[in-house]
C-alpha cells in the first residue's frame, strides 16, 4: 500500500506562528512526496485540532501522520492517541519540534521558516519508514516507595495508605518529621508546627499500610515502572526497634550525666548525649546511639549503664547494617532541602561572632521543646533588646544562589512577630524586597508592619563586633543610597534553601534528573509538575525547589494521586522502543549480547542466532548500532528511519 501522509502544522497561538510563516511551510510540505494533505491550525493539541487529524485519516485514507508543533515529550502521547482514535497504529505518527527547536530559539523569521521546512521534510521522509509497533501491557505492583519522611513524604504516605496502598517510607535520619519538626510556629497563621505535624507523624506510625524504615537509605533500585525492586540499607541504631518501649531510660542512665555533644537536630545550639532522640515526641520513639561519641564504641570499655537501665534489654552494640528488599510499582522522591551554610559568606561573621544565628537556629530557640525551652537568649544568657533579621542570606546572590528561596521573607516576618511578642525587643528587618505572595501572606506582612517592626531596605556590607558584646551592622540603605550603621544585640541570618550536599548521589540512585543547582526536575513545570522524566517516579516538596508548607503539602498530595493513578490502573504499557532480531539475517556473532546492559539478548546455540527477551529490553538501541549484519532493528529508531531523517534535515 502506498504511503498517504498528512502533515499538521501548529501555530501554537503566536508561539510558532509569530516566528514561522506557517502558511509558507504548509504550502511547502503539501508538495513533499506522499503528502496527501497539509494543514495548519491554531492549537493542534486542542480537541478540534485532534478531531481534524482523526477526520482526515478517514476522509483521505491517511496512513502516516506528521505533527509539527511542540515536542514529543510534551504532546507525543496526545497525537499518538488521536491517530489511534482515527484507526491508525499510534506509532505511525512522527512529531517534529518547530517550537522548542525552532521558533523559540531562532531570532530571524525567515531563518525560522526555512528551518521549519527542513525539520518537517525530515519528519515526512522519516515517517515513510515507520512501521506499526505493537506493545503489550503488564501488571503493576500496587506498593509505593516514598523516599524522605518530612512533611512531604508523610503527607503522600498517609494519602496512599488511606487509599489502601502499602507504602514503604524511607527516612535517612533516625526520626521522621524532617525540617518541619524543628519549627516552632508556621506562617501566616502562627499554628504551632508540632500541633499540626505530630498527629500526622503518629498516624504514620499507627497506619498498618505504612512500613517505616528510619535511619535507612535507598541503596539501589532495579526494575522498571510498575515493577521496581528496591534495596534499602538499614543502618544500625544500636537500639532494637522490636524491643524498645520508648521509656528513654537509656538516655537518663547514660554514663554522661549531662548532654555533652552538639545536637544536629538543634542546629548546633543544643546538646545531646551519645544516645538520644531528636525531641520528646519523636517517631519512632526509639533512641539512636551515635558510635562517634559513645564510650562503648570509642573505647570498648564502658560500664554500659544504658543497657543496665533498659527494662527490655533493647540496646544491642552488635547490631549490623541490614538490607531489606521491597517491591513497588511507583516511587515518590521527597528528599527535601538543607539550609544555606551562612559561614560561606564571611561578611556576616557567622560561626565567628557570638550572637549571630540562623533562622533555623532561631526556630529551635523559639521552640518550647528546644534547647532553651523557648527562651530567646544571647550566648551569655541575657535577653536581647535589639534584634536584626537579615533577609536573602545565600539567596538572590550571583555568588551563591541566584534564585529566591521563597520562604525566607515570611519566616523573617514570623520571627519578628514572635520576638516582639515574647521579649518585646526592638526588631529591624533588612530586606531586599518583601515577597509575601501567598494566601493571607500580604495581610500578615501588613499586620507585622503595624506591630512596629522596623523595615530597612538594605544591603549588608559587614557585621563587626562592638562594645558590650554588641554587633554593628554596616549596610547600604538602598532607598537612601547611603551607607549606614545599626547596633544590635542579636543578628538572625535568614538563610536560603539549597539541595542536599549529596544530591548527585541521591539523583543517581533514584534515576532522576536535576537542575544545575541540584533541584529535582519535573517533566513539565506546568503540565507535569510532580512527574519526573523517568516513568513511575514522582517528586514532591522542597526537593524540587524551595517551597513553603502549604505548597509542599499540595504537591505531596498531587504526587500521591499520580502514584495512585499508576498503581490503581494496574497495568502499564510495555516499552515501545524495543528491538527485534531477524533470524534470517543473524550470523550468531554475539556482538549484541556483549553490548546489552540488561542481559536481554541470549544466544541460541542450536540455531546459531541471538534471541531477545523483550520483557528485559529497555530500548536503548546499542545492539542495533553494533549489529554487523543489519539483523537488529529498534522500534521507532530503525536505521531506515534515522537515515531518512538525517537526509531530510539536510536536503530535498
Amino acid at each position, binding site marked *: 500500500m502506498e504511503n498517504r501522509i498528512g502533515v499538521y502544522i501548529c501555530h501554537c497561538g503566536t508561539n510558532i506562528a509569530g516566528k514561522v510563516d506557517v502558511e509558507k511551510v504548509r504550502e511547502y510540505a503539501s508538495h513533499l512526496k506522499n503528502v496527501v494533505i497539509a494543514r495548519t491550525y491554531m492549537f493542534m493539541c486542542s480537541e478540534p485540532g485532534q478531531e481534524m487529524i482523526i477526520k482526515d485519516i478517514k476522509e483521505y485514507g491517511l496512513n502516516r501522520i506528521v505533527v509539527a508543533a511542540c515536542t514529543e515529550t510534551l504532546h507525543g502521547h496526545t497525537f499518538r492517541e488521536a491517530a489511534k482514535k482515527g484507526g491508525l497504529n499510534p506509532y505511525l505518527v512522527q512529531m517534529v519540534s518547530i517550537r522548542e527547536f*525552532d521558533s523559540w530559539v531562532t531570532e530571524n523569521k525567515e531563518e525560522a521558516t526555512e528551518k521549519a521546512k527542513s525539520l518537517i521534510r525530515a519528519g515526512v521522509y522519516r515517517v515513510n519508514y515507520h512501521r506499526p509497533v505493537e506493545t503489550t501491557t503488564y501488571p503493576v505492583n500496587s506498593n509505593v516507595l516514598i523516599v524522605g519522611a518530612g512533611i512531604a513524604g508523610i503527607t503522600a504516605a498517609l494519602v496512599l495508605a488511606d487509599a489502601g496502598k502499602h507504602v514503604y517510607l524511607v527516612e535517612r535520619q533516625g526520626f521522621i518529621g524532617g525540617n518541619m519538626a524543628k519549627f516552632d510556629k508556621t506562617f501566616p497563621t502562627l499554628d504551632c508546627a508540632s500541633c499540626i505535624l505530630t498527629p500526622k507523624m503518629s498516624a504514620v506510625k499507627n497506619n498498618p499500610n505504612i512500613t517505616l524504615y528510619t535511619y535507612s537509605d535507598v541503596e539501589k533500585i532495579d526494575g522498571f515502572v510498575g515493577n521496581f525492586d528496591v534495596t534499602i540499607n538499614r543502618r544500625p541504631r544500636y537500639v532494637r526497634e522490636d524491643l524498645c518501649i520508648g521509656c528513654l531510660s537509656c538516655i537518663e542512665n547514660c554514663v554522661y550525666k549531662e548532654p555533652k555533644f552538639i545536637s544536629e537536630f538543634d542546629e548546633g545550639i543544643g546538646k545531646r548525649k551519645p544516645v538520644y532522640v531528636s525531641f520528646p515526641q519523636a517517631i519512632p520513639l526509639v533512641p539512636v546511639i551515635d558510635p562517634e561519641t559513645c564510650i562503648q564504641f570509642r573505647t570498648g570499655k564502658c560500664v554500659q549503664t544504658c543497657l543496665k537501665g533498659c527494662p527490655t534489654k533493647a540496646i544491642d552494640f552488635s547490631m549490623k547494617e541490614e538490607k531489606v528488599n521491597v517491591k513497588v510499582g511507583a516511587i515518590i522522591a521527597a528528599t527535601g532541602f538543607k539550609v544555606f551554610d551562612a559561614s560561606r559568606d564571611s561578611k556576616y561573621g557567622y560561626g565567628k561572632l557570638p550572637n549571630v544565628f540562623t533562622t533555623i537556629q532561631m526556630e529551635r530557640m523559639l521552640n518550647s521543646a528546644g534547647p532553651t525551652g523557648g527562651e530567646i537568649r544571647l550566648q551569655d544568657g541575657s535577653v536581647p533588646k535589639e534584634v536584626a533579621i537579615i533577609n536573602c542570606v545565600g539567596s538572590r546572590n550571583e555568588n551563591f544562589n541566584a534564585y529566591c528561596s521563597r520562604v525566607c521573607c515570611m519566616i523573617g516576618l514570623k520571627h519578628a512577630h514572635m520576638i516582639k511578642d515574647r521579649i518585646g525587643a526592638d526588631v529591624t528587618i533588612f530586606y531586599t524586597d518583601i515577597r509575601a505572595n501567598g494566601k493571607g501572606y500580604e495581610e500578615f506582612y501588613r499586620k507585622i508592619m503595624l506591630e512596629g517592626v522596623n523595615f530597612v531596605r538594605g544591603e549588608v556590607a559587614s557585621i563587626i563586633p562592638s562594645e558590650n558584646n554588641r554587633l554593628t551592622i554596616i549596610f547600604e540603605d538602598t532607598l537612601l543610597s547611603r551607607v549606614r550603621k545599626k547596633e544590635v544585640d542579636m543578628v538572625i541570618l535568614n538563610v536560603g534553601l539549597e539541595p542536599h550536599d549529596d544530591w548527585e548521589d541521591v539523583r543517581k540512585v533514584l534515576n532522576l534528573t536535576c537542575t544545575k543547582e541540584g533541584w529535582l526536575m519535573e517533566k513539565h513545570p506546568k503540565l507535569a509538575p510532580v512527574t519526573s522524566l523517568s516513568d513511575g517516579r514522582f517528586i514532591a516538596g522542597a526537593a524540587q525547589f524551595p517551597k513553603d508548607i502549604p505548597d509542599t503539602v499540595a504537591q505531596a498530595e498531587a504526587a500521591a494521586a499520580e502514584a495512585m493513578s499508576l498503581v490503581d490502573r494496574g497495568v502499564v504499557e510495555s516499552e515501545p522502543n524495543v528491538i527485534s532480531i531477524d533470524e534470517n539475517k543473524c550470523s550468531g556473532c554475539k556482538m549484541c549480547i556483549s553490548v546489552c546492559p540488561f542481559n536481554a539478548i541470549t544466544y541460541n546455540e542450536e540455531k546459531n542466532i541471538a534471541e531477545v527477551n523483550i520483557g528485559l529490553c529497555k530500548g*536503548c538501541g*546499542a545492539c542495533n548500532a553494533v549489529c554487523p549484519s543489519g539483523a537488529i532493528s529498534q522500534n521507532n529508531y530503525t536505521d531506515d528511519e534515522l537515515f531518512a531523517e538525517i537526509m531530510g534535515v539536510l536536503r530535498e
Partner: protein
Amino acid sequence: MNDNFEPKIVAIFCYWCTTQAAELAGTSRMTYAPNVKIVKTMCTGRVDPQFILWAFRNGADGVIVSGCHPPSDCHYEDGNFKWFRKYVLLSKTLEQAGIDPKRLRQEWISASEADKLKKVITEFTEEIRALGPLKHPIREGGD
C-alpha cells in the same frame, strides 16, 4: 571562500539528557544558530558511525553528537561509553579519509545545561563556518 556560506550541521542527541537540554533552551528562549538541526535517538549508544558518514554524504558540513555525562548519567547504564569508543575510532577514520575530524564534535550535555548547549552550538557553527564547506568525494556528485 564563499562569504555567504551557511554551514549545515546535524546534531544527534540522546533523548534523556541533551534533547532535554535542547527543550530547556527552547522554553528558556535561548537563541542559537538555525544551522543546527536536531535528530534524536534514545541513547548515544544507538549512534552508528554510518549515521555520521551518511550526514556528510548528504550535505552536512559538521556533525555534533551529545549524550549524558559519564560515568553514570546514562539512562541505559553505559551507552555514552559505547558511543565514545566509536567516536574515537571514527575520528581517526575521518582523518585518514581526508575529512577534518574537527567536523565531528563530541559533547556531554545534561538536561539542565541549556546554556552549555547554546554555547556548544554557537561555537561549533562558527568553527564549521571557518572551515568552510566540506569538499570530499563522499558527497554525491562530488569529485
